[in-house]
């Protein structure tokens, strides 16, 4: 569903009033409010048409908005809302026994929280996949990462960081001098930070 500027403003005003957009910068409210609007519309229509029971509807309502906010944080606003809601109905129905089970005293994780995290962090659809690397691109990226990590780990100098502003990544060295062991340890830490950052970007298709 496409929104005009006026409709977005109206949508933000309505959802702002409920307090569910609290803590977000304005441009994110403008992107998230239409998502909230659409999932609410879908939830209502699925319930009204009898496609989902009240039990599933109530369970879904509880997790739907936190999931949207987290999913939006992960992939942005480009995901298939209808498919996401359909998938959510399926997962809630499959897991409803777990979701309503009373929490044992020694359990730390709330099943609802766990469900929301797992769903939002793993949900995928055709629109999200478009942002992913192809197999060939992914192989090239992995080779490049491994090559760079090897250069960092085997460097005799202290590595400061990897400059990735251009397509040719450059290993930047520090002026500081350390012993051989300290240098190895330091470069291992830099490698870990580099791998974490680059894998995160790779998963976003960057």
């Amino acid at each position, binding site marked *: 569903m496409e929104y005009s500027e006026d409709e977005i403003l109206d949508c933000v005003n309505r959802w702002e009033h409920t307090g569910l957009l*609290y803590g977000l910068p304005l441009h994110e409210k*403008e992107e998230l409010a239409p998502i*909230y609007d659409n999932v*609410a519309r879908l939830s209502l229509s699925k319930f009204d048409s009898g496609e989902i029971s009240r039990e599933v509807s109530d369970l879904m309502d509880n997790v739907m908005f936190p999931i949207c906010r987290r999913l939006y944080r992960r992939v942005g606003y480009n995901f298939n809302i209808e498919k996401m809601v359909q998938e959510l109905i399926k997962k809630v129905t499959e897991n409803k026994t777990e979701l309503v089970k009373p929490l044992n005293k020694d359990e730390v994780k709330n099943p609802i*929280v766990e469900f929301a995290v797992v769903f939002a962090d793993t949900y995928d659809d055709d629109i999200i996949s478009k942002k992913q690397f192809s197999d060939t691109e992914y192989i090239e990226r992995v080779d490049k990462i491994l090559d760079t990590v090897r250069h960092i780990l085997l460097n005799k100098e202290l590595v400061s960081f990897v400059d990735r502003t251009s397509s040719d990544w450059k290993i930047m060295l520090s002026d500081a001098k350390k012993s051989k062991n300290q240098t190895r340890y330091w470069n291992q830490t830099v490698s870990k930070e580099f791998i974490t950052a680059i894998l995160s970007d790779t998963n976003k298709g960057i």
Partner: protein
Amino acid sequence: MDWLKKGAVTFSLAFGKVEKDALAQNDSESILAGNIAIVNPYVSNQLMTDLKEGRLTQQVKEFRKKHYQILRESAKYKFKDGQLLSEDEVRAMKIVQGDPYDGYPVEVNFDNKAIGTSLFETTTVRPLKVQRGVVPRFKIESYTSNVHVRNVDGKNKLLDFYIPKSPENTAILSELESLKNNKRLSDLVNFTKTSFTTQDAEMLVFEYRMLAFDKVVEYNNNYIVKMFAECVSDGRWKADWTQIID
């Protein structure tokens, strides 16, 4: 048909209660204490209708309370490589080492990247806030990309303001170079308070009262302005107001 309607109402009310009991875990029991009955099980999903129309009813307030509890809890976890990482593992992932010029451990790493512009804004805004009594030539919050908070003794912290040596920061670089070589009172570091809120679900507020300028160092193609500060707010949850329902 009356018996059927009556039965359906009883069932719905009973079921609604069981479900809400089951949903209320950890610190969310209070939601139940002040809970109201389901108004009318025959009509459409009233809560969703109210939300969609922007009506702030009692039920919406209770729903909002739960919503922020789930957001806060879920910010502690991450699903990665086929498994749900524990709270400690997620926390460990966020820890960075920082520059090698100070030994105090980095406990907070804040990304001050510009918040995108909206339809109705013309300039970008950065989330780092600074309070000062002077009008400076350079506002440190406009150039800082990251802030590392290092723990000195619990109450006192060392704040590292990372300013990248990038083309868009050219104007401030000579000032930083001069401050690095010659420690003096500069309007760049003449501010009284700084604060920031971690973004999205976490929403933790950190606030510091500045004590003294320490030094400027260079690291990873950044200038780092280091200042000692006293902690005023060490991660207060910004959405705590949602937990109070009239």
